[in-house]
């Protein structure tokens, strides 16, 4: 469940360090409110995501007051996408499906995925490494996401 919360926090825009902090704080707030004990797992999951969301918004507000409206719109979008095309209420299964689909990638797409996700290179760096244009990498990444999304959907069906 913790991994799920970190994933959600990072999707909201937290850097990995902040995602850890935000998750930890969210857990603490839930524990202090007695929400972690004897509750159905989906309820705890939803409460945790809400707590993460508010913690993240608080953290962002402290840095820049102007961005709060935009942040909330973004958080809403993440929330909807999480349920519609994301992990929903079964994060573990979704992540396993993603892992399986990722392993099936071959050729150019696999190369781009390795450099972009595993080695954390920027699009520009990936393009330079593979002798492509940056827009080409962008297109390949879009195709990669679409392929993975279909594959995950098939796996979860």
């Amino acid at each position: 469940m913790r991994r799920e919360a970190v994933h959600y926090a990072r999707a909201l825009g937290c850097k990995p360090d902040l995602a850890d902090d935000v998750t930890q704080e969210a857990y603490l707030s839930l524990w202090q409110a007695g929400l972690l004990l004897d509750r159905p797992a989906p309820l705890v999951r939803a409460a945790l995501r809400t707590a993460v969301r508010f913690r993240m918004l608080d953290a962002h507000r402290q840095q820049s007051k102007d961005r709060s409206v935009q942040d909330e719109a973004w958080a809403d979008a993440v929330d909807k996408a999480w349920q519609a095309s994301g992990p929903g209420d079964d994060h573990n299964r979704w992540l396993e499906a993603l892992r399986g689909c990722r392993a099936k990638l071959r050729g150019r797409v696999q190369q781009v995925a390795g450099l972009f996700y595993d080695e954390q290179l920027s699009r520009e760096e990936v393009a330079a490494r593979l002798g492509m244009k940056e827009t080409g990498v962008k297109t390949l990444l879009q195709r990669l996401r679409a392929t993975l999304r279909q594959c995950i959907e098939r796996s979860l069906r």
Partner: protein
Amino acid sequence: MSKLQTAEELQREAADRILDVGLSMVAESSDVGAAANRHPSTPWMLVAALLAVSITVTIGVWPRSDVGVAGDTLTMRQLVVELANAPRVQTPEHVAALPEGTIAVRLATPTIELVKSVAAIPGLRALALGGNKDVDETLDAAVAAAIAKHTQVRLLEVHEVKRLSVETVAAINSSPSLEGLHLARAPLPDNLAKGGLLGLDYLAIEDRWRAGRPDATTTNNKRLRAIVAGAHRLEALALIDTGAIKADDIQHISQLSGLSTLKFESSYLTKPLIAALAKLDVDELDLSKSLVARPGVLAPLGASTHITSLNVSFIPRLSSNDFLGIGDMQSLRKIDMSGYRPQTMKKVFDQHIEFPAYKDIARCLRAIGKASGLEYVALRDVQGVPLATLAKVATDKWHVDLRGATLVIGDGGNPMAPVPPDHKALLEKLGVAELLIDAPQ
């Protein structure tokens, strides 16, 4: 993200983001597995860590090949520990009652009779003398006689004497067995610096006096130069509470080419001082129990390319900013941050806000986690170690000491709890090579 994006576009971008983060997490977890395969833990590492933990005084290690009397097989580091914990004797009767095989003795208030009786202990290898408020020439002569007789004494500590007599200095100078000398609140006479330090592997100079006592050996530039000139074989040097040493003086130490261990316990560590220490070519730097001028002064340590072992335990007023620099030390193998107390008040937008301790410690852990070669991390007595962060940062190469610590457990446990006694479960959760926790009560 543009303000002109529609809700649908935002949701599509959010879906991409969720997928991207998922892929990064998959890659990260694969990395951990790959790293585990690349660096399998080996039994010798475990033994080395256990040995390191069992030795609490961090001054120099020198193996001796000659095996005979028990005290001869000990390293100097072990001998220092033995002497620190040695029995104190005050009368010849005490000496007579010492068990066979005693290798270290402390004479709290030595008299001539006492020194003579100690001289009769056959296996004595470490001796501490001093403690008389009014030390006179007579005692000095007796001390000299004891040293002359105990030609096998490897470690001598002289503490709380106003001056050393010519005879004492001569005895130290001529002792063929002396490898280590600890002058605690005792002077370093010029004639000793010139001749008596030549053969030493270990030298400790401790300036601290009790409140109201004069400072006998203010170790300054001149003293350091004398040490460098006289003790060029030194492998370990301890400068304790030597407040007069400034950054400019540290460069003299760099002339000790064989120096591998430096203990520098200062009552006022500043950034320039730390920057000078970071430039030294030493393997082991021990700053424990020092006092820092302000939080963040340890940051320049990040420039060090040599230090493999760093002890910053029990330094008050450290902050996670200090550890940001430490994390840049790519040569670092071992860090002791025991007794770390986080700064729980943070200044944000000119306002002091309460900052949870575990977040500060999490920041420290993430910072030291950047040191990729790290193998040993001591967190003894640290209150509020965030378990989740520790589990994430620690690798299977780490040996972690959590004795006396408390944990913040995010996964539904107590906000702050003692380290659970289930060693196996915790070891599995952390995924480290070795874990030291308190034995269950």
